[in-house]
């Protein structure tokens, strides 16, 4: 257990350090965006060119939003890259000679990726809250949902919905990581060369296709069908769907990571 923890901390630090640059860019852009939305910045624009101010403001919010998503994507990419470098390349002999199980190597990489994603989400959420006061559009968006649900008399818990949304996103990211790990491990079934790259590419999309089929089957079996009869029913359906897909993604991730561990144990061909 101690050895696994040591490995996990090492992986976490490596993935975090590599992902930090993307998070920092997002934070710097958010700070710049909050300045763009300040009165100080607005005072530099005469009323005749107010449209320019608005264009700059909305563009900055758009760029910031894209960068937030980009940071999340890059964490997943970095985790997968770290998995490849640290386990599947010729330079990974030391890791394979450590007295630990292969599944511990795989799990450590996946958990490190997930943990860095959680830390990134926390930093970016704090960042959103920090700048929401100055960026009126973000503050308005955050405040409008509970107001709407109250005024419409809806039975809608925003906190619960945010938690569920975060759970769904994290499980989705874990699933993507596990799928990438599994497809990279599938490449070990053939010797080096173009065949390996092709197998990784086809393997990834085949796994995604299989997962889609599984997800649809599970959603259907759970009796979830989209209902647009009322706003309340849309929220209820969304809640059940998020739970169902999130849980299925978790199960699929565990299955894919087990598959990756088995392939690496029995067919390692670095």
């Amino acid at each position, binding site marked *: 257990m101690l*050895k696994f923890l*040591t490995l996990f901390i*090492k992986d976490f630090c490596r993935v975090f350090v590599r992902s930090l640059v993307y998070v920092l860019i997002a934070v710097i852009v958010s700070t710049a965006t909050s300045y763009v939305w300040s009165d100080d910045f607005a005072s530099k624009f005469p009323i005749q060119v107010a449209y320019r101010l608005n264009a700059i403001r909305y563009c900055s919010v758009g760029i910031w939003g894209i960068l937030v998503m980009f940071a999340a994507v890059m964490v997943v990419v970095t985790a997968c890259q770290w998995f490849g*470098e640290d386990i599947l*390349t*010729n*330079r*990974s*002999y*030391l890791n*394979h*000679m*450590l*007295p*630990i*199980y292969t599944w511990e190597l795989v799990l450590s990489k996946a958990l490190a990726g997930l943990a860095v994603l959680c830390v990134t989400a926390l930093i970016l959420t704090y960042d959103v809250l920090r700048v929401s006061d100055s960026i009126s559009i973000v503050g308005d968006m955050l405040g409008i949902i509970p107001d709407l649900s109250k005024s419409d008399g809806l039975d809608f818990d925003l906190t619960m919905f945010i938690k569920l949304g975060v759970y769904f996103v994290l499980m989705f990211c874990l699933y993507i990581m596990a799928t990438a790990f599994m497809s990279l491990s599938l490449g070990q079934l053939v*010797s080096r060369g173009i065949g390996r790259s092709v197998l990784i590419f086809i393997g990834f999309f085949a796994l995604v296709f299989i997962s889609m089929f599984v997800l649809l089957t599970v959603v259907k079996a759970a009796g979830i069908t989209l209902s647009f009869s009322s706003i309340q029913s849309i929220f209820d359906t969304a809640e059940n769907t998020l739970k169902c897909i999130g849980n299925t993604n978790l199960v699929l991730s565990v299955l894919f990571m087990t598959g990756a561990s088995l392939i690496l144990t*029995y*067919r*390692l*061909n*670095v």
Partner: protein
Amino acid sequence: MANDNNKKNTKKPTVRKAVKKAAKPAASATPQGFDDEILLSLKNVKKRYGNIYGVNDISFDIEPGRIVAILGPDGSGKSSVARMICGLTPASKGEIKICGIKPSRNTKQYISFLPEIPFVNDYTKVSTVFRRYKAFFKDFDAEKAEKLIKYAGIKMSDTFGRMSATTMQKAQAIFVMCRKTRLYILDEPMTHIEPKARDFIAKLILSNMQDDSSVLIFSRIPNELEKIIDDVMFIHRGQIKLAGTVDEVKSEYGKEVSALYREVYKC
């Protein structure tokens, strides 16, 4: 590789047990029921790559206290044998046992492996590898490693990518040999380095090897090894072509191992 004359001169391959009886094990832990007679055993081991056998029916035993060299040119199957022993790639057929158990997570504590290529990424620092060895291997002598690293003129803050091939090999060899384990597997430890550094590595092997442990060296350059090895095997196209103690080989063929190697492999 070997021509007809050489084939006539070379006796049929004899895979044999190491002759010398080693001193009784002192410190290293071994699995229960292991009799300490044979440290490493390979029986009819084969490794297949597509339609080609990289290793074709290899069998030998290694007793504790021996330094064994497996010599052969590129593509003869040396690295495949090393990787199979270390559990880095499975054997297609046959049986490998280290301290009486098959290659697995449990055998990794009995093996210290030095691969031919660097075992970490270019951007990894010496201190990172040092910490990793200290954290994962109970038998790692951190104090000794630290002293040797200083002695070799290597800084803890150095990254592997910025080192010369010689310095990199020295650093890796120090880490590998500073473990007090049963079996040291060294793949081409002296191939890409300066002659002076070869002496350093030879001394490192002799001074750090335990009484109850063995060193298995895979190489294509026998010259520097001849001074330190007890047994030698010639491997060609995945098969052992000759095996014996250095003294036996010398008396049987009337030549030094390196001279015989050059004659057999025409190099």
